[in-house]
């Protein structure tokens, strides 16, 4: 008796589900960008001065780190399509290391602010006025939420990497790798807007 094993799989539906989730993420951050625009419009001077205290250098380095990590995860999909498992894993490894580097930079950046008593709820920050409280409140909340997404993305990528190691994801079935890539690119996309809004427009 011969049986043909057929796995029922719907890659298009899988990707559609991922995109629908990404849309909710876009609207979540979109809402925060609207809050930012309104507060900035109402407190132009305070936002202008507060933004000048952020390090453009660290911000630029972090932007480039995220852009490279997006490239490496995108290339890992090409690698798996070409059945090059080792290269795919190597590229995912680089992506994870770059993600961690981003978080380390963020840690030092936040550390500097906290040392100067700039953090939400700080009484010293409150003395500087309403506009500064709003700016740093949004800064910590939005970059913090973004960093949380980086952490989730890193866990997602590590889970995918173990699936590749166990051959559960291979050149025939890699939609989960594509979905983790989509999530990582979204995190990059959000940073592309966070960076100019907080660091550059002063």
């Amino acid at each position, binding site marked *: 008796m011969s049986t043909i094993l057929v796995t029922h799989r719907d890659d298009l539906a899988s990707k559609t589900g991922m995109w629908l989730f990404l849309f909710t993420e876009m609207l979540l951050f979109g809402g925060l960008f609207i809050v930012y625009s309104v507060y900035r419009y109402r407190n132009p001077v305070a936002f202008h001065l507060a933004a000048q205290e952020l390090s453009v250098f660290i911000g630029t380095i972090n932007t480039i780190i995220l852009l490279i990590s997006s*490239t490496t995860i995108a290339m890992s999909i090409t690698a798996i399509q070409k059945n090059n498992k080792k290269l795919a894993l190597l590229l995912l490894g680089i992506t994870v290391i770059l993600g961690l580097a981003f978080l380390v930079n963020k840690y030092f950046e936040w550390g500097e602010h906290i040392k100067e008593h700039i953090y939400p709820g700080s009484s010293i920050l409150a003395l500087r006025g309403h506009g500064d409280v709003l700016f740093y409140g949004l800064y910590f909340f939005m970059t913090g939420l973004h960093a949380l997404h980086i952490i989730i993305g890193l866990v997602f990528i590590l889970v995918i990497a173990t699936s590749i190691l166990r051959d559960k994801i291979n050149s025939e079935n890699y939609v989960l790798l594509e979905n983790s890539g989509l999530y990582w690119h979204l995190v990059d996309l959000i940073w592309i807007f966070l960076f100019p809004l907080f660091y550059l427009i002063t």
Partner: protein
Amino acid sequence: MKSVENEKNHIIPYKTFLYVLAVLIVLTLTSVTLTQISLGALTVTIALIIAAIKSSFVLRIFMHLKFENKMFSRAVIGVIMLLCAVITVTLLDYLNR
């Protein structure tokens, strides 16, 4: 084991991604340089236009929208238009108070 494939898969060459990365880094540095020079009200516009160009590269190439089922691109454009509409209405409200 047989798997049911329901779409043909497009393989993007490694080089393409590296070219896109180069463009994205150049755009980032351009944005940093231009905003350091004081251009007044134009600064915001320039920074956001560059961010939009960067996003379109990420969406079309990194996120494969260029090669994917057109449904995805249309949905993304729909979400972006919804966001722009909400931003416009909110700002119109605040600017005319």
